[in-house]
């Protein structure tokens, strides 16, 4: 590729963006199964027992690491840099172990500590700090691609993911041996449980959250593909995290470079396919979770639930009974009320020889309302006429309510009520009217209309009510009908039969009102279905198909097939054999009394009334005015003041019990992202990775053959095989895992690993710069019981770690031999945490979740991160919408597990330091703190430097800062000048390279 060197610019770009324009070199596929046997590639060979080199002139530190490093340095004519000063060393060690800068007091104490083991004490103190688990837990979370939401197509909240995060933090804080740390994440649910406390078992389940945490295409409609994609993601994360291998390549073809075949892949895939990580495979599928509340907690929860239900039921029943009794008492005492309203003497209520309490005197308010009805001119108003007659005939009044109800009871008969004009059909909720089928009732074009009044709209269950309709249900060929749906009007028309041929229109933005007459109409002209409410168009739908007639009756007051009944009044209901024009509909709605003749094929108008009808209607009207929904004696919204005192007290007692129960409610059941074992099954190779193209024979579940020695493992036929997988990973014979983990630990301290491709130890990965050291460290790691803290102690005690940073030597431009300590940019979390820490704003609370969103809901905007002052590890990680203060500083993409973040330098980072609220607010907070100190400005400048940069200023720096403050102050009004100038200075210190890099 000659153009590589065509211009200087391109050359430089190559240095920055290394692998750009590299052609994929595909070697000839190595033939035969022998390729997949243990091979000569270094990482597949057993970890050697290596003795540290014996050194001549060096080795004062006595640390074996230095023996390895200095030997290779000497071979390249290089040597270690001088030791870093104490100030540099404590800043380096504190960031390394806690992710935070040291305080000025800690720096001073360390400098003053003359004990020979002062440094060892420092390292031990830092590892014992709660900040240690937070820093190193985050180190693992990159590899585990930790997130609080699913990402991908359906970004659902995983509201219990944080338990895994807190488990990881605690594991590091407690120095949980790394082999156990591994086993619990892969197979924690399969470990023996005899005599193990619940809490420990739950923590092991939580650990397996690793396998559920990945991004999943939840709405993938090819569900078998979804499952295999998830298996693939699990294989990818597990093999990358613990083996440093990219096994995922072998899903479609034998690995192009590494000795990993599709057989190996499907042997592993069988293990994960035999593991359940999804709770369901619905349209949008749901990830798996397990309940981690103890049986005692669940029992308490259940008991509480029961008491609560009992209490709620008792309360509801008490209120119901009280209301029933109240209404009954009003009905019973109706005559007394009427007499009182009419101004007659009210006889004292009878008592049974004084043993039962006297009935309460009629309520004044009710009497007044009743009185108003009586005052209307009885000659023009039927209602007041009826009531006045009752008022002068106490006997009839006494039995009126009872008689009226009695005459209605148990009958489905048809009753009339006052209509919009004349009478109306009184639909009781179980009666209806019907006209038998006739062909002319089913015209090709039609209009339906009716007046409608109801006291309440349906709110529960099926919230539709049919008013006027013909031919079965809305799914029946030929069905047409007017309906209400809650407080909206609607029309159905079925053309062609079945659910798919239902046309409907519901009124948009027009709500019906209770207790008011509404005119509802719909027309169909063979093309458009139109709906009208109160004479105005309320929606339309294009149908464009001829309607076929049905063969069933026309019904008023219920769906024709008897499914559901309307309650209320219907009047002036008609079917016409033509589609009325909007103006005609409007006329019907404004002039209800005007006769309609042309085109009417069916009508219920209730205007041709007999004397009997009118009398009956008057009674309905009177009863309605008394006990109807809007009547004088309708149950008031707040009926409690009308209850007898004993009833009231009983209800209050129940309410008090309810409050007490709620106040002592146990915590809701807890869940954790976790897997469970499924039916164990071997998988055949999926040819070219397709689940639709399977090889004949299943591959027995197993591991990577090239990386194990001895006999193939025997996997339990009763379990998925994850436990055996974990045992194999953590076995001392496994050539990869210990190397991969110590390499990552090394990388975290030195910025680069001994192998600089930490997630790829395969053939295409980097070769170790110090293979003997890597093996020695790996053995040492296992020898010390997989203790991560022991590795910190070992590495940090070395002279290699404690040396200075200095300019890169031309003899080793990449500093692979470590002739100085590499300068490293602060990681994203360190930037934010350090800003909060030095400005005194960091909230050091440990653990718990900041995610207040509901589990499995779509991830809302993250409004927490920008306002929280908790440590960064506790902020919600929303996949695909990660908080930008983190992504700007190269936070690892939480959808792909990766253990190496590539630091960039871009102007957006500079904008962040110039303009972000986090930086500005921190600067102001630090400025206020400094200004509040009782000291002079020189000393404040010193304090600012010590807090932000961990060192005092040089004289010239101090003078320059002083001058800066003065010049800024002069540009502000006196009241703001001090804070503004000091904030500006602190912000500038934050922006300094010295703050953002650690030496």
């Amino acid at each position, binding site marked *: 590729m000659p*153009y590589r060197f065509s211009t200087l*610019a*391109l050359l*430089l*770009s190559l*240095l*920055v*963006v*290394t692998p750009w*324009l*590299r*052609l*994929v070199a595909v070697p000839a596929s190595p033939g035969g199964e022998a390729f997949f046997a243990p091979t000569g590639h270094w990482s597949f060979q057993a970890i050697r027992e290596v003795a540290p080199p014996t050194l001549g002139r060096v080795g004062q530190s006595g640390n074996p690491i230095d023996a390895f490093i200095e030997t290779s340095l000497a071979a390249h004519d290089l040597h270690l840099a001088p030791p870093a000063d104490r100030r540099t060393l404590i800043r380096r060690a504190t960031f390394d172990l806690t992710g935070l800068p040291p305080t000025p007091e800690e720096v001073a104490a360390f400098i003053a500590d003359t004990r020979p083991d002062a440094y060892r004490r420092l390292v031990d103190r830092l590892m014992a700090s709660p900040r240690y688990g937070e820093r190193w837990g985050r180190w693992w979370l990159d590899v585990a691609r930790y997130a609080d939401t699913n990402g*991908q*197509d359906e970004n659902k909240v995983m509201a219990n993911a944080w338990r895994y995060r807190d488990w990881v933090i605690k594991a590091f804080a407690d120095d949980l041996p790394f082999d156990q740390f591994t086993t619990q994440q892969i197979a924690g649910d399969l470990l023996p449980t005899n005599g193990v406390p619940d809490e420990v078992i739950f923590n092991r389940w939580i650990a397996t959250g690793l396998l559920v945490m990945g991004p999943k*295409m939840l*709405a993938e409609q090819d569900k078998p593909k979804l499952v295999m994609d998830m298996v693939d993601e699990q294989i990818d994360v597990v093999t990358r995290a613990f083996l440093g291998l*990219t096994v995922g*390549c072998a899903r479609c073809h034998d690995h192009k470079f*590494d000795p990993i075949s599709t057989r190996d892949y499907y042997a592993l895939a069988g293990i994960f396919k035999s593991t359940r990580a999804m709770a369901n495979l619905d349209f949008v599928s749901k990830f798996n979770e397990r309940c981690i509340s103890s049986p005692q907690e669940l029992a308490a929860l259940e008991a509480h639930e029961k008491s609560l239900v009992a209490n709620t039921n008792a309360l509801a029943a008490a209120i119901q009974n009280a209301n029933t009794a109240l209404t009954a008492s009003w009905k019973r005492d109706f005559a007394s009320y009427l007499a009182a309203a009419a101004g007659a003497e009210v006889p004292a209520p009878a008592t049974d020889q004084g043993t039962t309490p006297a009935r309460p005197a009629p309520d004044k308010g009710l009497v007044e309302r009743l009185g108003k009805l009586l005052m209307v001119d009885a000659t023009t108003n039927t209602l007041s006429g009826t009531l006045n007659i009752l008022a002068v005939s106490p006997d009839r009044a006494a039995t009126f309510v009872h008689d009226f109800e009695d005459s209605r009871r148990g009958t489905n008969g048809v009753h009339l009520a006052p209509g919009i004009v004349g009478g109306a059909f009184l639909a009781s909720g179980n009666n209806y009217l019907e006209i038998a089928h006739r062909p002319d009732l089913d015209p090709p074009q039609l209009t339906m209309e009716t007046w409608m009044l109801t006291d309440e709209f349906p709110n529960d269950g099926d919230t539709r009510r049919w008013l006027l309709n013909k031919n079965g249900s809305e799914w029946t060929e030929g069905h047409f009908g007017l309906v209400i749906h809650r407080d909206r009007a609607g029309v159905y028309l079925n053309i062609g039969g079945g659910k*798919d041929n239902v046309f409907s229109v519901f009124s948009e933005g027009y709500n019906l009102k209770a207790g008011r007459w509404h005119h509802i109409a719909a027309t169909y002209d063979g093309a458009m279905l139109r709906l009208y409410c109160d004479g105005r168009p309320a929606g339309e*739908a294009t149908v464009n198909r001829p309607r076929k007639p049905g063969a069933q009756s026309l019904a008023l007051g219920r769906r024709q097939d008897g499914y559901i009944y309307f309650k209320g009044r219907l009047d002036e209901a008609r079917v016409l054999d033509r589609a009325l024009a909007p103006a005609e509909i409007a006329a019907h709605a404004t002039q209800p009394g005007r006769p309609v003749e042309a085109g009417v094929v069916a009508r219920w108008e209730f205007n041709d009334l007999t004397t009997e009808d009118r009398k009956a209607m008057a009674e309905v009207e009177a009863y309605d005015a008394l006990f109807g929904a809007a009547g004088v004696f309708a149950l008031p919204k707040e009926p409690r003041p009308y209850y007898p005192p004993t009833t009231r007290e009983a209800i209050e007692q129940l309410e008090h019990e309810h409050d007490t129960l709620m106040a002592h409610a146990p915590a809701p059941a807890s869940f954790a992202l976790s897997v469970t074992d499924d039916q164990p099954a071997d998988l055949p190779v999926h040819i070219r990775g397709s689940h639709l193209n399977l090889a004949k024979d299943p591959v027995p579940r197993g591991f990577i053959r090239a990386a194990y020695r001895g006999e193939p493992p025997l996997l339990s036929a009763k379990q998925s095989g994850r436990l055996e997988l974990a045992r194999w990973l953590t076995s001392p014979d496994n050539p990869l895992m210990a190397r991969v983990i110590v390499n990552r630990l090394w990388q975290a301290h030195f910025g680069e690993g001994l192998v600089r*491709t930490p*997630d790829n130890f395969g053939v295409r990965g980097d070769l170790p710069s110090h293979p003997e050291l890597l093996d020695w460290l790996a053995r040492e790691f296992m020898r010390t019981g997989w203790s991560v803290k022991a590795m910190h102690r070992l590495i940090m005690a070395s002279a290699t770690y404690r040396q200075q940073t200095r*300019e890169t030597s031309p003899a080793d*431009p990449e*500093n692979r031999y470590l002739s100085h300590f590499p*300068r490293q940019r602060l990681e994203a979390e360190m930037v934010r945490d350090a800003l909060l820490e030095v400005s005194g704003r960091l909230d050091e609370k440990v653990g718990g979740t900041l995610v207040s969103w509901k589990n499995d809901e779509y991830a809302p905007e993250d409004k927490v991160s920008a306002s929280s002052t908790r440590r960064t590890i506790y902020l919600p990680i929303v996949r*695909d*919408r990660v908080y930008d203060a983190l*992504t700007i500083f190269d936070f690892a*993409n939480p*959808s*792909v597990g*990766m253990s190496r973040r*590539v*630091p*960039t*330098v*871009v*102007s*957006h*980072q*500079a*904008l962040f*330091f*110039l*303009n972000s609220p986090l930086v*500005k607010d921190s600067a102001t907070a630090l400025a206020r703190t400094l200004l509040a100190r009782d000291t002079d400005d020189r000393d404040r400048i010193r304090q600012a430097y010590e807090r932000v940069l961990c060192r005092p200023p040089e004289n010239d*720096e101090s003078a*320059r800062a002083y001058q800066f403050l003065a010049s*800024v102050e002069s540009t502000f009004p006196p009241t703001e000048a001090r804070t503004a100038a000091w904030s*500006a200075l602190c*912000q*500038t*210190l934050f*922006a*300094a*390279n010295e703050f953002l*890099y650690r030496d």
Partner: protein
Amino acid sequence: MLRQCGAGFGNLALLGLLSSVNRAVADTAANPLAARPPQFLPRAKRIIFLFMHGGPSHVDTFDYKPALIRDSGKPLPFAKPRVQFAKTSNLRKSPWEFRPYGQCGAMISDLFPLVGACADDLCLLKSIHGTNEAHGGALLKLHTGSDTFVRPSMGSWISYGLGSENQNLPSFITVNPTMGHGGVGNWSSAFLPAVHQGTPIGGGVPVEQATINYLHDPNENVPLQRAQLDLLGEMNRQHLAKSGHDPALEARIESFELAFRMQTEAPETMNLAGETEATKRLYGLDDPKTASFARQCLLARRFSERGVRFVQVTHGYWDQHEDLTKDHGRLGREVDRPIAGLLRDLKSRGLLDETLVMWGGEFGRTPTLQGTDGRDHHPHAFTMWLAGGGVKGGHSYGVTDEYGFYCADEKVHVHDLHATLLALLGINHEALTYRYAGRDFRLTDVEGRVVSEIFA
């Protein structure tokens, strides 16, 4: 990575001796966004992607199917795909008339009369096909080439490949992006260096309020900021002198000056006040129906003419499972004039030759009916079009079957589209790679055919 840089430039910068000409060279060392020459002679320098989120129906826009009109209401005479998003019924003709446009006589529906008038500049690709029938998967497939794994977006790949022509603006900008259906995944750099991530402008806020995060100094105090930067520069240079040569430290010193300049240039670019009334009318800024997308298209031109490599503007929501006639009609009215305005404006400024405009959604819609007036998702064959940037105008490539259901000939998979876009920019899609997890990844994975038949 940064520490691999050669020595020297930092010291120059330190001494403040750089002219603006060789500053660009210094930026290369510091800045992975510095412009890089393509691998071979490019036909286009940059891309504007007009993304129609939701999936506009190809058989109602650019893929004219007389047989669909003839057989409307009849069942599809061959098998539907194995996996379907939802059930559809019989064939359904378009509610819109199609008519011929331009010299080429391309048949375009009445949804796009003004775009139709630009037909002689359009290169219709009528046999695009993807694999995923759900929005999220299809968006990710179209933007990243993968509906299975997290991969860099095409804009990120292009930024990585070519850098930026303007150091004061991001190289990849997405205006009003959709936050769902993959969200950032659609403009993410994934494992590429984060600098290649698309910079979102807006999304969830009205377009006229959209801006770049942290761009504005909340105190609006330029002299103070300048004083801070001067002090900072002194501190950093002093620190550098003690540390010795370090490209990262040097790059960071320069990055603050870049940021300071970006604060001026980016808002200036987003301010449309300087545009003439005629231009505003051309895009449709004067009509409330078209104003929102007009603003996006005009922003796209302004970013593009200042050298931003990849500008995406998003419009939606073209997902008519129901009410196709009403809502596709409304959506078409919202974009027709702004798109035609953009094409005409680019042309009259002489920018269309070097700017590739691409139009399309994540999939098309079924030629069969869903519900009473809807069409379902359809990734099996749909239309996108290109204009300018070295493609044939007045051209049509790719054929679907007589109903527009499956691709029949000259098929163009999403991978092929990506390969073609890169080729137009002068990049061999097989050679634009990034090493991640032991593999050299490509935008086109192991697929991709350059559709050179459409090259002018």
